[in-house]
Structures are given as structure tokens and as C-alpha cells.
């Protein structure tokens, strides 16, 4: 029983994480339970009204906004220039502190952050500060991207700032770890950066592609993949330097590849973007600019796409293909449902149904078991 429970649980987690998970994998009993689980997961839920996020906890904190600047005032006492800068912050400080990318006072906020970096005692503190700032950029980007009233310029600025800051933070961490490969702080720093990059990945996946944001989102995705690869590289370097192989194995994924560019060749089973060739298999998710699932046949040469994939032996297999700019009128697959092959429980005894492709429906958002829906309740409100 325990073994079956473990197997079912593992498969369930995969089903929850990956809507394209093949429910037919494994024994008939497991497959049948998974189909039942899939039916449970897609039961319609009652809508929950959007909550107001008051941040009321902030009022209870002993540490006020002004105390947050204590490290600035420390050096300001020794530096007239810093004092003047601090005075300027005192006037616009609160507004700047709450500013976001794309807003005028955001430059002031960044200046303050640069000053914080200058004041950091050592490289470790600099790296910690960089992580802190990256988290801020991530929070800001999340708020902007999930706010329906944000404009496209703000969204682009948020993604650009987040990407740039993440790269900077990783460079600083790289320097810190290279200088001291056996440093106690190395692992927590890398672990935090990994958490942040995973959260970025989730945020980017949540963006529904649309013409205006596609370019920025595609660039951010490519940068994110490069950053993840860089983190893996740093881990490998530390592992080699400190002879700690366990660290090198932790979540490192040096086989991931991402490319942004035009399709130079496309077949049912292969796609070449610029000069990088990827194989397309049943696990490859291809989405058009509206975020709908399309088939490889719908892709045309010269279409701009963002492709992320993974090395499988000698082959590079595409995991996600996102169309950035479509050429002309692209045939759209109206059956765009990301639903795995979910059959209602009534047909669970039929193993022949397992490998059937998803059937077309006229509206993917109404397709039974569709995992794509328009969020009626955006999570954040300003």
C-alpha cells in the first residue's frame, strides 16, 4: 500500500505541476486513479472575490520606514555629499521608496540603492544587498504585471529592471564565491538566487502573450535561462574549488538552452531558430501570440519565437515554444486546450482512450478540463 501511495503521490504532483502530464503512464490502476484525480482537479470552483491587500502587518512593525535608512545616515555623518543626498531623500524619500519601474521617482530609489551598495562593509554584504534589491524588483514587477491598470511602458520597464538587476546580482555573487569558494555564505546566497529565479520563471509564465509585451517577455525569458545556467556554473565552480560534489548536484541544470530569434527551418519534428536546432516531441508546448496552444504545422519560417529546451543526449529537445511576432495570417488551432488527455472517470477503465489527442472545442476556456482561463479576479489591486 505504501509503495502504491508513494507512486500515486509522485504522479499526482507531476499532474498538478504539468497539465500535459501523460495520464496513461504506469500501471492501469495508477492510470485510472490519476484520471479520477484529473476529474477532481477540474471540478468548477466557486469564484472568490478579489481581496484587498492592506499590508496591515506593516503598522505593527517596530521598524519604521525611516529606520530603514539608518545605514545611510551612519555614513552620511562622515560625508557631506551623502548628507546632502540623504536630505534630498528626506523630501522625496517616502514617495521614492514606494516608486516602481516606469515612474519618475524610481531613479531616486535606484540612487539610494547604489549608495547602499557603496556603504556595504564587505563583498558578502554587497551580495546580500543585491539579493534584497532583486527581490524588490521582483515584487515590483509582480505588482505591475498583475495590475490590470498598468500600462505597457511600466510593464516593459518592470521586466527590463528585473532582468538587469538579476544579472547584476548574479555577477556580484559570482565575484564573492570566486574570491572565497569555501565561504559559509555561498550556499545561502545561491539558494536565494535560485528561489528568486524560480519565482521569476513563474511570473513570466503567468504573462499572457500579447503583441506589445511579447518582445520584453521573450528577452526576459532568455535572460532568465542564461542566469539559471550561470547559477549552475557558479555551483560547479564552488564544488570543484571546495571539492563538494553535493553542492554541484543541487538543482543544477546546465543542459537548459533558450533561444530568441527567427525560425530558419521548421518541420513536424524539428525547429531551427537562428542556428540552433531543437527536436519537437509530444511534450513540447507551442503557444501562439495569444497564448493558445498551436501545432508545429502552424509555425512558419521567419516567425520570431522564444524557445526553451533541454539537452537529451546529443539532441536538443524543445520544451516550450512561444511565438513572439507572427507573420501574416497564421492558421489558428481553435482547439487550443492545454488539457492533458483527461477523460471523465466514466471512461477510466478504457486504456485505449489514454493516448488520444486532446479534442478540439470552439472555446478553450470552456473546454472541459482546460487549465487556461481568464483570471476574473486579478490578485493585486492598487
Amino acid at each position, binding site marked *: 500500500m505504501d509503495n502504491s501511495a508513494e507512486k500515486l503521490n509522485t504522479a499526482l504532483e507531476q499532474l498538478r505541476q504539468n497539465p500535459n502530464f501523460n495520464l496513461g503512464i504506469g500501471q492501469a490502476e495508477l492510470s485510472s486513479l490519476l484520471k479520477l484525480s484529473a476529474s477532481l482537479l477540474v471540478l468548477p470552483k466557486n469564484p472568490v472575490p478579489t481581496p484587498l491587500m492592506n499590508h496591515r502587518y506593516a503598522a505593527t512593525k517596530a521598524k519604521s520606514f525611516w529606520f530603514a535608512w539608518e545605514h545611510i545616515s551612519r555614513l552620511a555623518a562622515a560625508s557631506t555629499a551623502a548628507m546632502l543626498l540623504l536630505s534630498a531623500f528626506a523630501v522625496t524619500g517616502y514617495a521614492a521608496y514606494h516608486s516602481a519601474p516606469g515612474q519618475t521617482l524610481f531613479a531616486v530609489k535606484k540612487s539610494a540603492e547604489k549608495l547602499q551598495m557603496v556603504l556595504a562593509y564587505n563583498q558578502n554584504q554587497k551580495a546580500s544587498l543585491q539579493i534584497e534589491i532583486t527581490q524588490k524588483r521582483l515584487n515590483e514587477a509582480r505588482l505591475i504585471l498583475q495590475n490590470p491598470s498598468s500600462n505597457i511602458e511600466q510593464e516593459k520597464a518592470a521586466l527590463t529592471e528585473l532582468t538587469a538587476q538579476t544579472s547584476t546580482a548574479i555577477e556580484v555573487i559570482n565575484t564573492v564565491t570566486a574570491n572565497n569558494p569555501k565561504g559559509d555564505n555561498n550556499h545561502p546566497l545561491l539558494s536565494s538566487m535560485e528561489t528568486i529565479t524560480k519565482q521569476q520563471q513563474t511570473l513570466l509564465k503567468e504573462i499572457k502573450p500579447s503583441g506589445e509585451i511579447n518582445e520584453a517577455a521573450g528577452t526576459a525569458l532568455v535572460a532568465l535561462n542564461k542566469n539559471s545556467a550561470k547559477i549552475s556554473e557558479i555551483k560547479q565552480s564552488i564544488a570543484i574549488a571546495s571539492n563538494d560534489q553535493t553542492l554541484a548536484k543541487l538543482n543544477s541544470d546546465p543542459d537548459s538552452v533558450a533561444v530568441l530569434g527567427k525560425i530558419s527551418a521548421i518541420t513536424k519534428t524539428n525547429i531551427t531558430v537562428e542556428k540552433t536546432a531543437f527536436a519537437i516531441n509530444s511534450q513540447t508546448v507551442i503557444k501562439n501570440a495569444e497564448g493558445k496552444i498551436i501545432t508545429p504545422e502552424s509555425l512558419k519560417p521567419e516567425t520570431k519565437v522564444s524557445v526553451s529546451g533541454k539537452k537529451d543526449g546529443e539532441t536538443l529537445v524543445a520544451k516550450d515554444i512561444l511565438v513572439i511576432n507572427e507573420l501574416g495570417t497564421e492558421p489558428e488551432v481553435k482547439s487550443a486546450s492545454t488539457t492533458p488527455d483527461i477523460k*471523465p472517470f466514466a471512461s477510466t477503465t478504457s486504456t485505449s482512450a489514454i493516448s488520444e489527442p486532446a479534442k478540439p472545442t470552439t472555446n478553450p476556456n470552456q473546454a472541459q478540463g482546460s487549465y487556461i482561463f481568464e483570471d476574473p479576479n486579478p490578485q493585486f489591486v492598487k
Partner: protein
Amino acid sequence: MTKSFVFNISPMKLEENSPISAFLLEKAKNRDETALTEIYGLFFRKIYNFIYYRVSHKETAEDLAEEVFIKAFAKLSTVKDDKSFEGWLYSIARNLVIDYYRQKKTTVALEDVENTLEYETNIVDVVNLDQQQKQLLKVLKELGAEQQVVIKLKFFEDLSNSEIAELLHKNEGTIRVIQHRALSKMQELIKQQQEQEKSDYGQ
């Protein structure tokens, strides 16, 4: 500008592992404002949903969810590790909902409150169900109380095993076993119903 988002089945689900790192938790314990805001942003909606399903009132759910974070941030030093953090937040939410019902109905028995918490969750939109989905809910009601709770928390509220384990004061292994038994039982009940229907049709 009209915005919409593509979510997986679990909108806020990041990883099966805790979405917060030990480093972030340490910073939050040191009253780091950014870390506290990050944690609040990551979990507020999940906690709010959990409470809303149990009180069915937006403002009350908002207030109680805020209260969860006030209490949690005041007691962050008691959190052992990042993996148990999310389950711990749900425990605080659960206790606050119990307190809410206690205050609302001063004479209510604790058992009733627990039942309200666990069995009366009005999450699934029964109006919009097709025949097969209604059958699914019907067999769910035939499960034992404990199995029902685990299935509801897992599939309707999208809680992870560790969160359910924390809420029900059990270990994760036990939750996995209950989950397996519950689904197997449901499968068996469905088959029985289908055979019964065939037999009735034959007659």
C-alpha cells in the same frame, strides 16, 4: 489595458518545496522589510482563499488573513525551518477561523466548529456541474470523514501534502496513504454505481 493571465491548475503554486528559501526566512526573522513583504505577497492570496471558503464573507476573510500575517510575523522566531512555514501559516489561519466562530456563536461546541471547518466547505460550484461531476461529488460524500477532508484540501483547495499534514496534525506519509485509499475507494464506488446502473437498465 485589458490584462489576463495564464495559470496552471494551481495559480500560486510554485514548487512542491516551500516557495520561500531558508535565507528569505532568516531575513524575515530579522525583521527585514523586503523579506516580510515578499512573504506576504507570496502567501496572502492562498491564506485569504483558505479563510474565505470557511467564512464566505469577503471583508471578514480579508481581516482574518491580515491577522494571520500579523500573528505570524510576531512569532516568526518560532518557525523551525522554511519547509514547515506554509503549513504553519495555515494552522494560524485555521485557529483564527475557529476563534471567529467562537466569537460569533458563543455557545457553539468546538466539534461543530471543526466540522464547519472541514466538512462544510462550499468550494465546488454545484450549479455548474455535469452529471458525471455530480456523481463524483456523491461518491466523495460516501468516504470516511478523514478521507473526505484530505481529498477536499488536496483537490479543491490545492494544499500540498505538507500543508495538509500540518493542518490535520499528521505526518506526510499518512496523508499520502489516506489520499491513495480515498481515491481507490472512490474508484470502487464509481464502478459499483456503474454496474448497478447497468443492472437496472437491463431489468
